């Protein structure tokens, strides 16, 4: 009984702010609810879902999200791991200072960071292109206004916030028993064999955790394009991510029922990908305590 009492704040919060709103949006998706509500609120069956199948913008914004994920997800998983490996290296001097430096950007408010990056990546006046010009690149990319370079630019901005990922990976690396490395060393294993047969399996739960969070984060990618372009999707709709389109349906176009339908599509897509990842986890994630 006491246990439930202590759990109750979370349970109430979960019900009031997650489960019930989720069920409410499911209900909304079968109605015609919108902000102006000129017509009476009615049950419209699956018409919002039918509209979804023929809405080119919905699928195009989902494609935008996947295109970005194809670049951002590998970088978001591999780079923190690689940096953590470097920071964990015995031959690195001043590793504590580096850890602080890599983590520092994470504590800067992300919106402020995005605005600074916006200035740095400006094609005409940004520091990045200024640097590229000084090293002889005459026509550097128009990072944020060119559909070909906007995703790499967004990934660069994302790298700014990998401090937390580095810490998690570092914790995983430091949890690997040193006996395993000693044994491998005696057996004559090189750097690559040690990485492949000891380090990666031992930190695979951490990589799996980072991957799952990365998938959820990238499918919900919202803040950076909203701050950079006020949610306009510039340039030419290439930053109109699915979550941004969903937000616009809700609050800019004031179409609550269709926004709810989009939200459910996002939920289903996220759930499906997460389930697939969990299904594959048995093959590549090693839990020492399991066997």
């Amino acid at each position, binding site marked *: 009984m006491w246990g439930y009492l202590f759990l109750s704040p979370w349970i109430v919060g979960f019900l009031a702010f997650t489960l019930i709103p989720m069920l409410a949006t499911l209900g909304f998706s079968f109605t015609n609810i919108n*902000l102006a*509500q*000129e017509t009476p609120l009615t049950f419209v069956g699956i018409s919002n879902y039918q509209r979804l199948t023929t809405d080119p913008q919905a699928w195009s914004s989902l494609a935008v999200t996947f295109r970005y994920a194809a670049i951002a997800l590998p970088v978001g998983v591999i780079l923190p791991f690689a940096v953590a490996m470097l920071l964990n290296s015995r031959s690195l001097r001043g590793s504590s200072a580096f850890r602080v430096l890599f983590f520092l950007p994470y504590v800067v408010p992300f919106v402020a960071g995005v605005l600074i990056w916006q200035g740095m990546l400006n094609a005409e006046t940004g520091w990045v292109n200024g640097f590229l010009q000084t090293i002889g690149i005459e026509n550097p990319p128009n990072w944020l206004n060119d559909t070909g370079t906007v995703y790499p630019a967004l990934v660069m901005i994302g790298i700014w916030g990998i401090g937390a990922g580095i810490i998690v990976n570092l914790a995983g690396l430091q949890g690997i028993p040193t006996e395993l490395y000693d044994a491998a060393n005696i057996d004559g294993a090189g750097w690559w064999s040690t990485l492949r047969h000891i380090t990666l399996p031992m930190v695979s739960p951490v990589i799996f955790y980072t991957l799952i969070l990365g998938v959820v984060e990238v499918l919900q990618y919202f803040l950076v394009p909203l701050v950079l372009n006020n949610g306009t*999707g*510039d*340039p030419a709709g290439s930053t109109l991510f699915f979550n941004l389109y969903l937000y*616009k349906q809700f609050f800019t176009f004031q179409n609550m029922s269709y926004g709810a339908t989009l939200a459910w599509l996002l939920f289903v897509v996220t759930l499906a990908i997460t389930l697939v990842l969990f299904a594959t986890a048995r093959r590549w994630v090693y839990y020492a305590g399991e066997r």
Partner: protein
Amino acid sequence: MRTRGRFFTVLIALALLATACGTQTSPSGSVPSTGASGPVSGGQVEIRWYCCLGGGDAPEQVEVENKVAADFNASHPNIKLTFEAVPYDGARDALATQIASGNPPDIVGPLGIGGANAFPNQWLDLGPLIQKNNYDLSQFPENTVQIYQLAGEGQVGIPFAIYPSALFYKKSHFEEAGLNEPPHKYGEPYVWPDGREAEWNYDTAREVAMKLTVDKNNKDATQDGFDPDKIVQWGFEPQRDDPRQVGAYWGAGRLVGDDGTTAQIPDAWVAAWKWWYDGMWTDHFSMTGPQFESPDLNPSDYPFFSGNVSMSENYLWSTYGVGDAGDDWDLAAVPSYNGQTTAAFNADTFRIMKGSKHPDEAFEVLTYLLGDASQELLTVYGGLPAREANQDAFFETLGDQFPQEVDWQVARDGIQYADNPNFESPMPNYNEALDTLNTFGSKLQSEPNLDVDKEIATLKEQLQSIFDQSS
């Protein structure tokens, strides 16, 4: 088990109660207030004034708006007027969120026709309040009153400010280029330095603009060796707040046909968009998107304010920041297209939201803004008073503000060339259609090798699809 079941039942009931205590969007469309604006103390009623769906967010404007609210509060002990400025870029979403959460403001403004169209059926019919308070509408020209009479919605606004258009230009740039200034009177030709006369149309404007576009080596855009990557002065800037406005200076039109459901792109707008696109990417007289977005090249809202643009089509509201361009600017006639001149027209006012819990007090504030405070506000907004009796005084104030003897008659003359139908005319699914249009505009500004005809055809298809969804 039974105890556990009861416990969960209580928890769920509490959760449902908490949810029920929250606010919902009313199916009737009238949104209940959470009481965020309402009685404050000693019988005082709080009225929230929300800005800035259509300008009013520049620091110098916010300063005056805050002062107006303070002055009102000092003279009206029964009402506490709270001014809330949300920057234009985020103002629509913020207002939508406030409405959706049942916490709408009482008064919104300054607000243009398009800004109001973004929130259909959210505006209070002022008719009963006008009658109750014997508010005299005859002080305004009848056609400006009619702008705010909507079928099924009533009198949703009272005229406040009108914004005719003109061509702002830098006299020194023309002098440096050895060119004559553009004509001030509509219908007069442009005179080239050799005495040739040419119709003051967009073909002539293009030629002039290219001569006024200069790179860092002082070569203009018509000369060999001109470097488009190192432009320091641009010849022409259209009104690019949205692509409809670029088009509206070429000819009046709207994106939906007379049947209210068929998407259309006016021919004049197609011509305008192509001219502008070439102006950015081929002729180089207009800033590209990245240049426009650069805070160094375009530090204020409009590039003309930087002093590095020679000609700029814009509304009279530009007077709020045009002082930054120096003291050598003047006004000229807007060029014509196909022998016809169109000077896009805009109008702003303040409106009361249907969801206001205190419409009487809100109306008292509204009449103050349109009356006692109007002179101060109109000056800082650059808005020509809709009250004809106040127009001379307004131009006198502008004359004091800009002592270089600007030819304000050009702005007065522009009124007769106002676009009709107005470019901001209602269309189905207004917000979504405008969003699609702006994506098209972004493409024009950011992609140098577009097939513009194909993009326009795609835009028309997209608009039709959006219009169809509203039926």
